[in-house]
């Protein structure tokens, strides 16, 4: 994490300076960061397990993204609200408790409203608890900022996760099945690339996506440098 500007000598009643706190940013920046340059899947490589498992068809990837967003926003809000009351020694336990509660809620709400998707996602909804993205955002961000920023960050990270999963899943569903959201795209003579529906296809798709994102980031870096030196 980049160093924050050293604060002027604090007054006696000024709040203690926390070197680990995220630098100040607008709400828009907090949201956009998760979608763009700190995208959880394609840049931070967090939550690879659900990414591999549920991106075989778009409905599954999208539902997984929405469920994770719900948990990110809910746990971020509560971690931030209670950040002053959670003792330092039991903070991880408390964060996991908050996350697990929201995951359980998401699981039950999904089962009640979309039983088919809930069945297809199987154990991967309860496993959101173990997604390091959740604990990571709680510990690194939500616990150090005001609730509004924590919610914005959760929303951004969730959207970034949803967009990445949906993109990977669309690619795999279109080529691996010849459908999108279950609707056939090509004629009956299209032979689906079944390989993409299987785990190795997931790795290949993710590799292509990460390569593309890394290339764009490098290209933009070079572009900015060139523009500066010109």
């Amino acid at each position: 994490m980049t160093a924050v500007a050293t604060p002027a000598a604090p007054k006696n009643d000024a709040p203690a300076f926390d070197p680990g706190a995220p630098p100040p940013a607008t709400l828009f920046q907090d949201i956009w960061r998760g979608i763009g340059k700190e995208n959880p899947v394609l840049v931070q490589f967090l939550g690879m397990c659900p990414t591999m498992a549920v991106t075989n068809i778009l409905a599954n990837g999208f539902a997984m993204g929405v469920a994770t967003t719900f948990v990110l926003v809910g746990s971020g809000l509560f971690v931030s609200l209670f950040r002053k009351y959670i003792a330092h020694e039991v903070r991880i336990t408390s964060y996991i408790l908050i996350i697990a509660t929201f995951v359980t809620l998401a699981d039950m709400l999904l089962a009640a409203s979309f039983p088919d998707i809930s069945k297809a996602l199987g154990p991967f909804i309860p496993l959101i608890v173990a997604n390091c993205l959740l604990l990571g955002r709680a510990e690194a961000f939500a616990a150090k900022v005001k609730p509004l920023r924590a919610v914005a960050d959760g929303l951004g990270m969730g959207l970034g996760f949803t967009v990445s999963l949906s993109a990977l899943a669309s690619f795999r569903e279109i080529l691996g099945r010849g459908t999108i959201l279950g609707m056939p795209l090509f004629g009956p003579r299209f032979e689906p690339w079944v390989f993409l529906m299987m785990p190795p296809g997931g790795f290949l798709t993710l590799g292509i996506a990460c390569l593309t994102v890394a290339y764009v980031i490098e290209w933009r870096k070079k572009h900015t440098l060139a523009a500066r030196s010109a």
Partner: protein
Amino acid sequence: MTDHVHVHGGGGAPPVQGKMTPAWKLLATLFVAGAAAGLLVVAVYRATLPAIQKAAAAKVNGAVREVLKAPAKWDTLYVVKNALTAKLPEGADPQEYQKAYVGQDASGKRMGIAVVGEGPGFQEIMQLMIGFDPATGTLIGIKVLDQKETPGLGDKIENDPSFMAQFVTRIAPVVGVKGRAGSPPNQVQTITGATISSRAVIKLVNATVARWQELMQRYDKGGTP
């Protein structure tokens, strides 16, 4: 915990160096948080349970209707102590017992029974709803409830309707043949590229029919239809 962690570390209220939070406070934090979380989970569980059960029941009803070719109505029999009975013991949860759905046509004549069969597929347990006539072993219809066969190959047992359609009017025990199935009333053509999944279905159908035929015979001898 080192001083370093105290100064720079993680979240929560940054602790004052050298000062530990008393144990009762830690316990109180976790107790209150746990109780609040528990209450919330129970509340949502109670709120969503009816919808979840309704969806599960609708799925079973749809499958029964499909594999018995639209019965007018059906009765449910439960397996208690390896015998069929129409009445469950007092206070028992119907969810915990295996069931047979005995379908009848409009005149009350028995059309057949629908049961759930569960057995190993290519790599995971598969679940079928099987409708058949217990007197003759003639299959009426089969529907896949759950399968995790290889996408594109083994999952044709569910996605290729012509495979399951073959079972209709066949008489169990069924035999799987490669290539073209002949005229005998017990032959079914296996799917090319999914021989193991096809055989798993056949094996599961045969085992399920045999088991429930025996159960139904004992039940019918016992009296009430």
